[in-house]
């Protein structure tokens, strides 16, 4: 008797498809920027986090100078702690990277390896970036033989990626706003197309919640479709990214930030859809022919 909620969408198939597509694009564009930033950032971080700044100490430096230097570095806010790596530890690290056999072949011994300070940043990546300049400056000191810091270009790229992530976030807000407008406008149009039915139901005593239900259901379904479409596209992009990364860098990146970005439209779509459905179906936004000019409608 009373048409099901999705009947109006089925009647206007092409318009519904266009709205879903537009809504999906609204989520996809910022999602893609944020996703690219997140995926690139994950990849860069993965590489950068394995690299802690190292200060190689001069052989002639006195214990007092070394203690003073260590104390100074420990007070940096970006440094969580300073690990003292003696010759034997350096050999062990080398063995881990090159293999025991290879180190033996090379004839490297603990006496040959200089003592060094390994700086563990207090916060990953951000700590790394700030530490680069601070650590690089230590090379001028007499007690320091050399420093090893990540390549400045990599750090700069990472900074740009952070900016890209921020822009993606801003675009995300804009995309969500566009998505909300697209879905809401369409829900209002569908609601107006059913105005006669709503008026009749209202006239004979239908509860407000039963009049609101179709808009809410439509909001959830349209949001789910649009969000699902955006997520599927981002998932495909993610799979492509992973295969490219593994081909270029030779290992798989963890992509901890990229996954949530890819899945986000699937959660955001229905959530905004349900909110839009609630909003457009409030009595104040429902148009009616029941009420004459001088009177007002009941808020049912």
């Amino acid at each position, binding site marked *: *008797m*009373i048409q099901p909620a999705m009947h109006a969408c089925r009647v206007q198939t092409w318009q519904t498809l266009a709205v879903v597509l537009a809504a999906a694009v609204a989520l996809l564009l910022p999602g893609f920027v944020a996703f690219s930033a997140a995926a690139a950032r994950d990849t860069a971080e993965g590489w950068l986090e394995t690299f802690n700044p190292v200060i190689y100490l001069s052989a002639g430096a006195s214990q007092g100078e070394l203690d003073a230097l260590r104390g100074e570095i420990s007070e940096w806010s970006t440094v969580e702690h300073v690990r003292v790596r003696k010759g034997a530890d350096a050999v062990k690290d080398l063995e881990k990277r090159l293999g025991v056999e290879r180190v033996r072949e090379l004839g490297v011994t603990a006496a040959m390896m200089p003592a060094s300070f390994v700086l563990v940043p207090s916060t990953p990546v951000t700590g790394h970036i700030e530490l680069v300049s601070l650590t690089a400056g230590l090379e001028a000191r007499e007690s320091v033989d050399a420093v090893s810091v990540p390549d400045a270009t990599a750090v700069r790229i990472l900074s740009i990626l952070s900016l890209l992530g921020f822009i993606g976030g801003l675009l995300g807000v804009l995309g969500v706003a566009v998505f909300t407008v697209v879905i809401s406008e369409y829900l209002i149009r569908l609601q107006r197309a059913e105005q*006669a*039915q709503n*008026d*009749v*139901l*209202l*006239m*004979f*005593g*239908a*509860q*407000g919640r039963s009049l609101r239900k179709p808009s809410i259901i439509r909001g959830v379904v349209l949001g789910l479709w649009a969000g699902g479409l955006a997520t599927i596209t981002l998932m495909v992009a993610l799979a492509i990214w992973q295969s490219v990364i593994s081909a270029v860098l030779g290992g798989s990146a963890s992509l901890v930030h990229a996954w949530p970005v890819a899945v986000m439209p699937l959660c955001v779509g229905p959530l905004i859809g349900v909110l839009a459905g609630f909003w457009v179906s409030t009595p104040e936004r429902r148009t009616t*022919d*029941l*009420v*004459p000019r*001088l*009177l*007002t*409608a*009941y*808020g*049912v």
Partner: protein
Amino acid sequence: MRKDAPIISCFHLDLFDPTRKRKALDDVSIEVERGTWIEIVGPAGCGKTLLFSVLSLRAAPPKGTRLVVAGRNLDKMPVIEIADMRRLMGSACTRPILLDDRTVLENLVVPFVVRGEPQMALDACETLLETCDLMELRDVPVRELSHQERIAVGVMRAMVGRPAGIFIDSALATLEQRLQKPLLNELKQCHLDGSAVVLLGYEYTENARRGRRFRMELGELSEVETPVIVPAEVSEVEDVGGAR
């Protein structure tokens, strides 16, 4: 909800029309008892439709009006319960809101569906169509109906299921005799079965002498005690009803 209370009582309904710069409704008070027959007549623009909208709970009255529905004060009623109160009523006007893409029968069934009584719906609607001699319209989509037939369907929908109060705004007056007579007879039957019937129009029907008569002029409502001249054709209506 009190069973013995009037269907609806309206006290001191005042409404100013800023466009016409006069009162559209002027201190209107009326009580619609259960099982009563009320006719309100007046010229076009006197405020009948406004009063109809308030009494049939289509529109909220202005602040300051006391509206009591089935013994309950509407001012103190949660807004959600107004919908329940509407289930007591059926209403129709000269421009009925119908579901154009649905058949006449499907339109008539709507009140039953909303009231949650679908069991008797089909039988009741078919009986009503038969009684009103409109069975041929049963499966006709409403968009294919003439204006007169639309009004007739609107009136039938208002009385289907015998609601406690039936409110008709000028709809019967605009109908040709072929459609008007059986509908008026069916309204009388509803009245005999206990429904309160409120007719608003331009002239009293013959049945007006059975109930209360009101006249409306420039927003003022006054009860008429004088006998009413019965038009000849309306007498025939009663004869048809009596024969049935």
